[in-house]
Every structure is written in structure tokens, then in C-alpha cells.
């Protein structure tokens, strides 16, 4: 017996260590990103370098936009305060490497969900917060009324390294047109070069065209052509491999859309707690259980709605009231109201 004491003690020690590790992992949901976020006290959010309506900083450094609101929803859910977000403006070049390298934990930068990005870059798209499409902007006095008026030899300004560039190449090839691509890294430069007359057309997502048109010297001199040449589902992105964090971001966005579907707003969220509707009870946290499955406390969804608002409120305040796309929401309305926003239920 004494002979084997040494081996026995090491065996017992090993088992004890293993036990503590497993119980620890069974108790808390395993997510390095969640743990680090709570430890740091803020959500690391990657946004654009300034796109009105999506992520835009005013002179005082306050960020607003529908992408900004996604990050603020995550902060409200995880940390209790929607303002506990650190925004990092990123160019199209840096956005994915910043995410994979860990500089940011959520990328909310009007990024299109494509197969290549999903599979090739080790990222996960957790939803769509804006259904968009690519379009063209031309000068009104050019007389062009649609993309059928395009002729070989024209020059087009755009951003490089985006789906825009690839769609443009495909579109022009399908039409059999030769064109000159003037590609910049920054959207501002592309827009200004088009405005100066160097390019005959400017192409990017239609929401971007609307936003950039407001910045041009004479917005009324430019029109957006009616054709939409591609699908651009824009949504938030996280790193692949952290399933808990993915779920948290995904359902933070989903609950905003669910809340609008059931009429829960930032104003009436508290009073809606007394509702009899079981879906509303889950959304407001009156019926417990949803937060625990995500590793969060019970009031996570209530905080999102109270501090950030539901999807409709966010859309209205950032995109309609600012004059970027003041009309109907198009595909970005609820499925019950003629759009295609249809998220899985909170259950």
C-alpha cells in the first residue's frame, strides 16, 4: 500500500482538478468573449468610419445608427447599460482582420452576408439588420433614366474590396459593357470623385447612395437609378467558434424585431409586463427562463427595449427621421406589414 502512495496522491490530485474544471464549465456558459466583455466592462464594437444612418459619430463623439443600436442592444443585455460600448471605426480593409484578431467582438458595419465570407474568413453572420441592394447614382442632367442607358466606355466610382466591386464587374459583364473602374478605399473619396465629374456613375448599396447623396454639394442634381442589381443583406458579424456569444448577439437583434411585432416599445415596455400574451411576457421578462439559456439574467430583453428601443424605433430615428430614406421601409418592414423581417420566435 505504501509503495503506491505517490501514484495514488497524484491520481487523486488529477481527479480533483478535473472535477473543479468540469463543474466550473457546467455552472457557467463557456464563452471567452462573454467573460472578457464582463471583465472589461464594455462591448468592443467595430463600426464604419462614418455612414449616416448606420454608424455615424457627431462632433461630440456620440455614435448613432442602426448598426450602432445592435451593439448597444448587446451591451444592454450583457452589461446592463446600453452606453457601455467602445466603438472602433474600421475601413473595409481592416474590418474582418480586426474581428478575427480580437480587436473587436462584434462587427456592425453594414457588411453583406455572403457564402465566401461565411465560409472563408472564419466568421459567423448572426442575422440581418438591414435588407439592402446595390444601385447606381448618376447626374440628373445626364438624361440617363435606367441602367439600360449605360454605354461602353463609361467610368464608375466605387469602393474596392467590397461586394459592390464584384457585383459591378458581374453586372457589366452580363450587359457586355466595357467600363473604367475608379476604385477607392474610402467611400468619401469615391463620392467626391464622382461629384467632380471624373466618373459617370457612383455605385454602392442603395442605403449608402441615399446617405451619400445628402452630403454631395447639390443633392438635387443627382438621382438614384431604379434598378437594384444585387441582394445585400447587411448584418452583424462575430468570430466563429464562440457559440454562446453568437447566440447572445443573434438574439439581441431578434428580440428587437420581435418586440416591434408585438407592439412593445421603449415607452410601454414596463407596462407591457402585465400583459396576458405569453410572447410579450417572454419579451419583457415577466416570464423567466429565456435569459438563463443565454447565460444572461432575466431582464436582458427588457433592458434592450427600454434603452435602445425596438427595431421600428431604431429604424425611424436613424433612417426615416434623418431624411436618408424617409418613405416606406420596403423589405425592412415586418412580414405582417409587407416587408420580410421574420425572425424566429422568442421561446
Amino acid at each position, binding site marked *: 500500500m505504501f509503495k503506491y502512495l505517490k501514484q495514488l496522491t497524484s491520481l487523486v490530485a488529477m481527479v480533483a482538478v478535473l472535477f473543479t474544471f468540469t463543474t466550473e464549465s457546467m455552472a457557467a456558459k463557456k464563452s471567452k468573449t462573454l467573460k472578457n466583455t464582463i471583465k472589461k466592462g464594455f462591448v468592443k464594437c467595430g463600426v464604419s468610419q462614418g455612414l449616416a444612418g448606420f454608424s455615424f459619430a457627431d462632433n461630440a463623439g456620440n455614435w448613432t445608427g442602426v448598426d450602432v443600436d445592435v451593439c448597444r442592444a448587446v451591451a444592454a443585455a450583457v452589461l446592463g447599460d446600453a452606453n457601455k460600448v467602445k466603438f472602433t471605426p474600421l475601413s473595409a480593409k481592416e474590418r474582418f482582420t480586426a474581428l478575427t484578431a480580437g480587436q473587436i467582438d462584434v462587427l456592425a458595419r453594414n457588411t453583406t452576408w455572403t457564402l465566401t465570407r461565411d465560409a472563408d474568413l472564419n466568421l459567423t453572420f448572426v442575422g440581418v439588420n438591414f435588407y439592402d441592394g446595390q444601385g447606381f447614382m448618376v447626374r440628373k442632367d445626364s438624361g440617363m433614366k435606367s441602367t439600360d442607358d449605360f454605354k461602353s*466606355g*463609361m467610368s464608375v466610382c466605387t469602393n474596392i474590396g467590397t461586394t459592390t466591386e464584384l457585383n459591378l464587374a458581374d453586372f457589366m459583364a452580363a450587359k457586355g459593357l466595357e467600363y*473604367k473602374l475608379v476604385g477607392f478605399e474610402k467611400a468619401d473619396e469615391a463620392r467626391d470623385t464622382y461629384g467632380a465629374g*471624373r466618373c459617370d456613375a457612383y455605385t454602392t448599396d442603395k442605403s449608402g447612395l441615399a446617405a451619400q447623396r445628402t452630403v454631395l454639394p447639390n443633392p438635387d442634381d443627382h438621382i438614384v437609378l431604379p434598378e437594384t442589381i444585387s441582394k445585400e443583406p447587411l448584418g452583424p458579424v462575430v468570430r466563429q467558434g464562440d457559440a454562446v456569444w453568437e447566440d447572445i448577439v443573434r438574439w439581441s437583434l431578434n428580440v428587437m424585431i420581435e418586440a416591434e411585432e408585438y407592439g412593445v416599445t421603449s415607452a410601454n415596455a414596463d407596462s407591457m409586463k402585465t400583459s396576458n400574451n405569453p410572447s410579450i411576457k417572454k419579451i419583457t421578462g415577466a416570464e423567466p427562463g429565456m435569459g438563463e439559456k443565454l447565460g444572461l439574467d432575466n431582464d436582458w430583453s427588457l433592458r434592450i427595449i427600454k434603452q435602445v428601443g425596438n427595431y421600428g424605433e431604431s429604424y425611424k430615428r436613424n433612417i426615416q427621421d434623418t431624411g436618408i430614406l424617409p418613405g416606406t421601409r420596403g423589405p425592412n418592414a415586418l412580414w405582417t406589414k409587407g416587408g420580410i423581417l421574420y425572425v424566429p420566435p422568442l421561446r
Partner: protein
Amino acid sequence: MKKIVPQIITLLLIILVFAFFTFNANVNMSNRGMEFGYGFLKRAASFDIQFSLIEYSRESTYGRAYLVGLLNTLLVAFSGIIFATFLGLIFGIARLSKNLLINKFAAFYVEFFRNLPLLLQLFFWYYAALRILPLPHETNGFYNFYMTIKSLYTPSLIWENLDVFLYLLGFSIILIFIINNYFKKIQENKGKQYPILLISLIILFIIPSFAFIFGISSIDIEYPVYKQLSKTSGTFIGGLAIPPEFIALFLALSLYTGTFIAENVRAGIEGISKGQKEAAASSGLTQKQILNLVVLPQALRIIIPPTTNQYLNLTKNSSLAAAIAYPDIVLVFAGTALMQTGRAIEIVSITMATYLSISLAISAFMNYYNKKVAITEK
């Protein structure tokens, strides 16, 4: 033994550092599920490039896109080097002129373009100077040269049977070399001088023109023709279209680097002591001979090494093309291709290796040239 040990230790240390970083990158990349490999170069690029010296379409591979970017970089670098050298020589010698106006004008050029940051000058040329050019339909051009905001449209040459002309050209160059050496040998042995330059020029012009005289090769000129694209815009089809991105980069690089070369030239020529020129003059050499045989060989020895530096600077500075949409290797490969594929390490390593090779090639050639033209002390 004592000498070898520290060398071995240093070598081991370098290997260790290199291995650590490689291992670190490997572990982190596999943790994130990222793969490493250069196979992506065979995939289709799916994007277009505005300006290319070789055939390229969106179905070409990333490898071909890399080549296009490389050729564009070399094009702007070499044309910039040539023009900068030209400016440097002129303004460097002008600074030494006794004419006050020429002297001060050259001084102004050097001080002005040397002291402003290159990026600023580039932005000026692209976003300010070339923006005020007229639209294609608003200009009448100058003898079929149309300078517009969209491009500089020039007539281009169309060759037929170009290879015959090139063979004759090559043959005449070889002939010139042989004759030059032969005449130089005669001059050294017997002291007899022959008009070598004149004979060389005659050969250079007569022999290749045989290709045209006998109707084998021919040149045709293609003129740019206006084509309307919409009610308010148009373009020119045919001929050569030089984009303003290239022009702005070329001007900014040449004007900026030309100042440094001008100062090098001035330093080289001033560095020759007056005694050399006086002794040469008193030996009975003409002014031209003094310049060619006494001043320049010594001055070039001083001018060439720092000028090599400037050539390398110009080549590396051409990477600023990324700021103005000129499709050089940084914008096309380390920009667009990197964003589309996400392969940062592979792409940046290739780009770095490319710039390193170009710079090493330029400095190797300049060192060879320096040895050839500089005077060797006996």
C-alpha cells in the same frame, strides 16, 4: 574556436526568434481555423482593374491581378525615375548657373517641392489640379491630344510586323557597340579620333528604317474619337487613354524626387576641385572634353550612390497610389485582393518580397553602372 562560438550563438538566436514567431502565428491561426497557403492565387479574382498593361478580365486569377499591379507599379516607378533624373540634372546644373534668374528659379523649384510632404503634393495634383480639367465634350483638344478630367487621350501607334523592326533595331545596337569598341581601341593605340557618335547615330537611324523603306513594317496612327455616353458626358474611343491617377502620381513622384536628385547633382559637380578643371584646360582639352573626360567621371562617383537611394525612395513611394485609385500592386493586391480573400499574411509577405526584389534589382544595376562610369584610381 573563440571566434566561431559567438557567431554560432547569434545564428541560433536568430533562428530561435524566427521560429518563435512562425510557431506563434501557426498556433494562433489554427486556433481560429484560418489556413495558410498560396493556393488562393489560382482562384478567379472577380473584380475589374481600370488600367492594365496586359490582358485582364474579371475571370483572371488573383495571380494575374498581382501581375497587373506589379506592372503598373513598375510603369509609374520607371517613368518617374526617368523624369525625376531629367529634372534633377537640369535643375541641378541650373543651380550652378551664373545667370541670376535661372539660378533663383532652380532654387525655388528645389526648396518648394522638397519641403512639402509627398502625400500632400499627390492630393494636390489629383484632387485639385486635375479636377479642374474640362469634361470630354467641352474640349477641342490640341492636335488630337485631349486633356480631360477623365483621362489624357492621345493618338496611339499601331504596328504591323513590329518584330522585323525590332530585330533590325537590336542588330544595329549590337553593331554600334562593336564599332564603338573598335574605334576606342584605335584611338587609344594610335591617337586617331573618329566621329564615333555621328557614325553610331547614322547606323541607329538608317538600319531600322530599312524595315519601313522596303514596306515590311508599317506604323499607323489611331486617333481618339469622341463618343457620347449621355446628354452631358462622353469619352474618347481609340488611341491611348492615360488616366489622371497615373498622371497625378507620376507628376508628384517626379517633382518631389527630382529635387533631391538636383541637390545630389549639384553636390557632385561642386565637389570637383577647381584645380581639376584648370589643369584639364591647360592641357588643351575643349570644354566638352573637360566635361566628359574629367568632370563627369569624378562627379558621377559622388552623384550616383545617393541618387540610387532616391530611385529606391521613388519606387517605394509609388505605393501611395493606394490613396488615389491608381491600380498599383498595393491597391490591387494588398488592397482589393486582401479584402476579398482575407489572406493577410500571405498577401503582405508577397508584396514585401516584391518591393524588396525591385529595390535590390535597382541598386544592383546602379552599383554596376557606378563601377563602369566612375573613374578608377590607380
